[in-house]
């Protein structure tokens, strides 16, 4: 039933994005140039270069503490880079505030669920929609009368399969539902570039595979960057993989090429794949 649903919904989402997609028509959607970030004397990001084409799905992998989340925090404006440039659709965004970057068409999710706990599912999504539809700080109109915002929120609710939980407060959702809502808020504004920070963290195997289908479905036509630990997810979802080790991108290529890359094998993948094999043998 859900697959029958998926197609018209996805088309709707794509048509909604067209207003935003001009900012990275052709060329690179996102570019990092010689990016550095120090916390005090500690260098966390040590000269990262990365260029992501519009519509590409990129997974960022690497061991814990390699700087993947820091990279996301730099791109989304949570931290300012120490040096180097970040370009979104060709425009420099380093040093800009998160809300400015969001308005330029980049949206992110969080590793630790980051939603509005005391608002209902519907209100959570509607909040995510408001700015992009131009309502900004509107004071002289009622939310109930904003048909486009309400329709869009309803539509998102169906996309993330939470339409039965419309009035439930976000804090009362199950963990998997909260993760879905997190994705819903992230895509609500119709941003063309989506950053997902460990979207499946803490989920069971079966939840994860369903969730990956959902992510694929709601990010059709968008540029997607995701940090992910589950190698099954990574190889299933990504067009390209960037391997970050110790604050540097040591490889950026197709999944097959990355898998075959001896440098990656040595630095990271070898141990992870061995672990996974050991785990699957164990079962």
């Amino acid at each position, binding site marked *: 039933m859900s697959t029958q649903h998926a197609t018209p919904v996805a088309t709707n989402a794509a048509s909604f994005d067209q207003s935003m997609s001009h900012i990275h028509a052709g060329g690179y959607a996102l570019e990092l140039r010689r990016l550095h970030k120090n916390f005090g004397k500690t260098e966390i990001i040590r000269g990262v270069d990365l260029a992501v084409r519009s519509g590409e799905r990129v997974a960022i992998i690497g061991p814990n503490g390699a700087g993947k989340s820091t990279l996301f925090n730099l791109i989304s404006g949570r931290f300012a880079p120490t040096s180097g440039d970040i370009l979104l659709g060709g425009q420099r965004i380093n040093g800009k505030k998160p*809300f400015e970057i*969001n308005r330029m068409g980049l949206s992110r999710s969080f590793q630790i669920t980051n939603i509005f706990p005391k608002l209902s599912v519907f209100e959570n999504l509607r909040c995510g929609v408001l700015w992009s539809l131009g309502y900004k*700080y509107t004071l002289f*109109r009622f939310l*109930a009368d904003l048909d486009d915002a309400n329709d869009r929120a309803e539509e998102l609710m169906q996309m993330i399969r939470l339409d039965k939980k419309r009035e439930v407060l976000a804090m009362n959702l199950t963990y998997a539902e909260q993760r879905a809502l997190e994705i819903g808020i992230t895509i609500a*504004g119709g941003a063309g570039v989506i950053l997902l920070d460990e979207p499946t963290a803490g989920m069971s195997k079966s939840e994860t595979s369903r969730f990956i289908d959902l992510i694929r479905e709601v990010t059709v036509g968008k540029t997607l960057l995701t940090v992910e630990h589950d190698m099954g997810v990574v190889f299933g979802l990504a067009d390209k993989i960037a391997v970050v080790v110790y604050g540097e991108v040591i490889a950026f290529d197709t999944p097959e090429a990355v898998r075959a890359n001896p440098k990656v094998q040595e630095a990271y993948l070898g141990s992870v794949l061995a672990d996974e094999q050991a785990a699957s043998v164990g079962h």
Partner: protein
Amino acid sequence: MASTHYSFKPYNVGRWVIWSLFAIILVLAPMVFDSNLSVSMLAQMGIAIIACLSYNMLLGQGGMLSFGHAVYTGLGSYMAIHALLRVSEGALSLPVSLVPLVGGLAGMFFAILFGYVTTKKAGTTFAMITLGMGELVFAMSLMFSEFFGGEAGVTADRVVGDAVMGITYGPGVQVYYLIAVYTFVSVALMFAFTRTPLGRILNAVRDNPERVEFIGYNTQMVRYLAFIIAGFFAGISGGLAAIQFEIVTAEVVGPIRSGGYLLFTFLGGATFFFGPIIGGILMVLAFVLFSEITKAWLLYLGLIFLFMVMYAPGGIASLIMMNLRVAAFGRLRELWVSYLALALTALVVLAGAGALIEMVYHLQLSTAMGDSVKFLGVTLNTQAADSWFGGVFVMLTGMGLFEVTRRMFIRQWSAIQTDIEKEIKRRETQ
């Protein structure tokens, strides 16, 4: 974009009923309570309701704990009373009915001015800056006596200008109705605010400011705008107070007044829109009536606040809503015996504690009037051991009984809540 859901906006009958009732109560109240004191109290309640609701725009809806809200009500009062003076001098032509708007604009102006600094940060920093700002203005009120009137304050006569349709604002009841109109409109506007995009994003900023930054909103701007709007309504409340009392003294911008708004908004309940309305009414009852009954009223108030924070942090409004939910599932009847028991045992505690408190206050303040204290129809002797032991005995007995009934009630209450949760789950899956 085609509508993907069935949209139907029903004519909201419930809402019309509630607002009509509110209007009728405002109209009828001074006819039912028609003594001078009660009309004056009703007028003050209107003023307090607007103030507490404007305060809750910050606290309940925006998560901003302000310790300096009296700055905006108070400066609104001052500007309004100066406007009233200018009107009586003939320097300004303004109907008295519009003087509260002068207060509102003043409140808004100072919120624009001071709020730019205070709303830069949220949380503890915000609270600290508002505290500092409050102290600053209060200190200035003592320095600039031309504007603030020094110790004596500023007085004015509200019966100025031409009477419009026989309304001079001489009689208190005319002032009451002016305040009632402002109260109704302000409450309606502040409620409407909660239904606007800005109002909803303000809730989002309260819940999770960090995430709001990542959906395109500048949280600082959201806080600042809300602060300005709250300042406007605070100023309206202050302007009405200037007309009601015809005198404004420095205490209206003082920290005690700010604390009062915080305390009563919290008591009424910050999590529901109507909570501060209850808070405003209680504020006037406490300040006017309660303070007449006992000298120790601030102590009682402090104790009530303490217990409220500990046991019902959602205030009276949340207690009402919790019980309405139980009633909606038809389970309230089971609880009335427990409620009766809780009330009775609490009264026993109160009687004992009250006797002790009154005796202590008598010893401290009025020993010259003799040793005996009248309390609840009993004559207590502050020099006699049996009065003290009696008080302690009654209080401890009450506390023991209360604790026993409280535990029983908690068990009963949680059993009912579990049933209700199950029922909700069952309805969801249907």
